[in-house]
C-alpha cells in the first residue's frame, strides 16, 4: 500500500461526510428552501398571469364581436328608421296635398255659391227697380194715378207679361 492514491483514510472519509452534511443543512435552510419556495410561487404567478392574459384576450375578442354585432344591428335599425320616415313623409305629403286640394275645392265651391246668390239677389233688385221704373214711367204716360186696385191689377199684368216674355 505504498501508492498514496489507494490509501484508506477514515479521517478524511468522516471529515467529508461531516463537511457535506453541514453544507447540506446550511444550504437547505438558508438557500435551497427559500429559493425553491420562491421559484414555485413565481411559477404559479407566471402561470396565473398567462391564464389571465388568455382570458383577457378571449374577453376582448368576445367584446369586439359583440360591438360589431351592435354596430351591425344599429345600422340595420337606422336604415329601417330612415326608410320608415321616408314613407311617413311621403304619406304625410300626400295627405296634406289631398287636404289642401279639398279645402281649395271647398273655397271655390263656396265662392261660386256666393256668386250665384249675389247674382240672384242683384237680378231680383234689378227686377224690382225695373218694376218701379216702369210704374213711374207708366204713371207719367197715363198722367194720372190709378186706383190702388188698378195699380195692383196693372202690375200683376205687367209682371205676367214680363214672366211670359222671359220664358
Amino acid at each position: 500500500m505504498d501508492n498514496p492514491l489507494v490509501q484508506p483514510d477514515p479521517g478524511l472519509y468522516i471529515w467529508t461526510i461531516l463537511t457535506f452534511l453541514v453544507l447540506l443543512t446550511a444550504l437547505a435552510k438558508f438557500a435551497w428552501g427559500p429559493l425553491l419556495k420562491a421559484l414555485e410561487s413565481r411559477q404559479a404567478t407566471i402561470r396565473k398571469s398567462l391564464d389571465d392574459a388568455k382570458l383577457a384576450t378571449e374577453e376582448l375578442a368576445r367584446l369586439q364581436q359583440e360591438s360589431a354585432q351592435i354596430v351591425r344591428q344599429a345600422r340595420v335599425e337606422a336604415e329601417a328608421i330612415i326608410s320608415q320616415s321616408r314613407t311617413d313623409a311621403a304619406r304625410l305629403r300626400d295627405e296634406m296635398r289631398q287636404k289642401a286640394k279639398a279645402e281649395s275645392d271647398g273655397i271655390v265651391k263656396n265662392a261660386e255659391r256666393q256668386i250665384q246668390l249675389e247674382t240672384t239677389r242683384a237680378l231680383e233688385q234689378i227686377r224690382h227697380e225695373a218694376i218701379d221704373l216702369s210704374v213711374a214711367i207708366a204713371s207719367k204716360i197715363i198722367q194720372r194715378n190709378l186706383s190702388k186696385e188698378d195699380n195692383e191689377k196693372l202690375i200683376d199684368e205687367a209682371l205676367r207679361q214680363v214672366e211670359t216674355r222671359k220664358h
Partner: protein
Amino acid sequence: MAFQEPAAEHLAGAAAETFNAGRTILEHVSNSSREHPLIHLPTLAGIDFSVTKHVLMLWLVAGTVFVLVTWAIRRYLRQDRLVPSGFMNALEAIVEFVRDSIVLPNVGKKWVNTWTPLVLTLFIFIVSANAIGLIPIFDVLGVLNHWVLHAGEESFIVRVMHGGSTATANFNVTAALATITFLAIIVAGTKAHGFVKHWENLVPHGLAAPIYVILIPIELMGMFVRPFALTMRLAANMTGGHIAILAILSFVFLFTERFGTAIAGIGVGFVLSVPMAFGISLLEIIVVLVQAYVFSLLTAVFIGMAIHVHH
C-alpha cells in the same frame, strides 16, 4: 511516505536530483501526507482526524459554495420582483435544471421538494470540488513563494502546497459522498414505504422460494455496488485527467534532463506539452461537469428506484 518534496521544487526543474515523473505526478494528485498534516488533531478511536490538504480543500469548497450561493439567493429573494440577474441567472438555471431534469423525472412530483436540496448540494459541491482542481491556485502560490515570499520549509504556505487540490480525486472523499447517497436511498425508501416495507421492496414479491436464495444476495450486493461504482467513477475520472495533464507536462523536464539543456524541454513544451495539456484541460472542463452530473443523476435515479419500486 516518500513524497515529501515541495511542489515548487519540481516545477523549477529539480536541477539537483534526477527528475522522477511518476513520483511528481503522484505528489500532485494525491492527498498531502498524514504524517505531516496541515493541522494536527488527536486520534479518536483509532481514526486520525488531522486536517490534510483534501480536508482543507473540502472546507474551502464548502465555505465558498455556501457564501456565494447563500449571498446570491438572499440578495435575489430580497427583491420585490423575482427577476434574476448576473450570477443568480446561472444559479437559477442550475437549480431549475437539477430540479426539473434530474430530480423530478426520477422521484416524482410528490418528493421533488424533499430530495432537490440534497441532489442540488451534491451537484454544486462536486462541481466546485472538481473545478477547483483545474485552477492552479497552489502552483501560483508556489511560484509566488519561490520568487517573492521565501517562506520556510515548515511554514503553512509551503505545507499547504503539498498534494493535489482536487479532493474529489480522492476515493475516500467520493466514498463518503457515495455513503450519503447510500443512506439517502434507505431514507427515501423508508419515508415512502416505511422501514420494513422498504427492505421488502428490495426483491420482487411472489416468487418461488429458491429464487430468493439467489435474488436476495444479488440485490444486497447491488445495494453496495451502486455507491461503490459512484465512488470509483468520480475519483478515477478526476484523477485520470490530472495524471494525463501532468504526464504531458512532465515531458518538459524529461527532455531537459535527457538532452542536458533547458532549450529542448522548453521546445517540447511549446510544441507538444502546452497545446496538448490545453486540449486536455478543455476536455477536463467537460469531465468536471459530466461527472458531477452523473453522480447527482445516479443519486436521483437510485432514490427514485427506492420510491417507485419496479419489480
